[in-house]
């Protein structure tokens, strides 16, 4: 597990997620790859009870959150149940490549299977 991968502008310090050759804020080329610390705040969250693919459907649904990372960017994550807008969370990217958000301070290892 690690923090989400981001890009950071060497000129203005702006940080973002989606891969780009140039900084979206100042257009400077050649951003630096950085790993987020994982701390963030829930900007919005939903529980999906009707998945886009039947094989993704799980009983009780699964959470998807938009989390504003402390570094600045807002990223989409799977989220543990019960999160609300404004909650502090810790985001980690697991072996399957999926970022998962759990309530800050909870045990990352055994939380958030879905």
């Amino acid at each position, binding site marked *: 597990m690690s923090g989400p991968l981001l890009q950071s502008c060497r000129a203005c310090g702006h940080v973002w*997620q*989606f891969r780009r050759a140039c900084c979206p804020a100042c257009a400077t080329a050649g951003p630096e790859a950085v790993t987020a610390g994982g701390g963030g705040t829930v*900007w*919005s*969250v*939903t*529980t*999906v*009870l*009707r*998945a*886009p*693919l*039947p094989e*993704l459907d799980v009983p009780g*649904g*699964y959470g*998807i*959150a*938009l989390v504003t990372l402390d570094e600045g960017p*807002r*990223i*989409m*994550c*799977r989220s543990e149940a019960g999160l609300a*807008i*404004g909650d502090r969370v810790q985001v980690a990217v697991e072996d399957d*490549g*999926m970022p998962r958000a759990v309530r800050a301070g909870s045990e990352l290892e055994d939380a958030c299977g879905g």
Partner: protein
Amino acid sequence: MAYLTGIAVTAFGKHPGRGPVDLMEEAALAALADAALPREAIDGLISGYATTYPHLMMGTVMAERLAIRPRHAHQAQVGGATGAAAIILARHLIAAGACRHVLVVGGENRLTGQSRDDAVKTLAGVGHPIHEVPLGASIPSYYALVAARYLHETGASEADLAELAVLMRRHAADHPGAQLKKPLTVDEVLASKPIATPLKFLDCCPISDGAAAVVVSAEPAGAAVIRLAGWGEAHTHQHVSEMPDDVGVGAKLAAAQAFETAGRKTADMRLLGLYDSFTPTLAIFLEAFGFAQPGRAGIAARDGRFSRDGALPLNLHGGLMSFGHPGVAGFLAHVVEVVRQMRGEAGRRQVKDAPLAYCHADGGVFSSHAGLVLERTA
């Protein structure tokens, strides 16, 4: 100057055995008849796309089917905003002197031409292929994230949003071509099965078969003259992950440009045709444009503001939520209804007087916006 001279919409719902080209052909021929134009007068054609027939050259496919040889033909593609953007592009083609009569047409068998799972999967693909789609996000879940944020920021309730679904169903009841007409209550919306919280099944528009077409011309035709007085677009992001903090900002930018080009104000509008893929879409639009106070769109709907006899009648055909949503034709149906109302041809749905109207659609997740101010000048 550009005028909306021909309009047509098929019934929305199920058209088993008919493909996108069949449906678009029906709407296109009806729009030409409505404009009293011969086929050969069409020198520009902008078609939508069809998820059930993802062709590279739908514009030419339609020109061939209609047996016309336009000087300009292509397929436009900005999701739900396609119809609105195509009408604006038709206006630009006319303003540039490139065309005199542009046919804008959209339609598909989105309901019967594929499985529901395929439809949901295709639509989910507007999300980011690495950072969103693999997480199991769907179109309703993208909008659910925006809806949850909207409710959080404004203090509006899910019952308030439900009022908008109820209103659309009430309006659809008076249109013979609407897909869903059974009366609906707020409680039924709230009790419908959850899709992606806070959205329930009845907060979402249906999937439909159908088609619609609009002819945009350099000169007016017919007794009632409907001018495309103002137009505006804004494309602020594609993915919900990168949407601006103000979820209404793209809508505001496009509308501001539309009102500016028309030389009109929000308060001048007397009729609305707004994209309503989900109840929060409609609420966010109504509030972004200033047609309702922040968080109050649903309450205003309940109080009659957007009803046929209200101050700002909205989607009198029932909108995407109840008239139906076959993709590109979905918003074109809003334009067809608005023009019909402005001409005074809406029968028992007819509003008293609507000399000025605003129409607006978004594609993606509030990503692409296109707005039209329509004015009756004679």
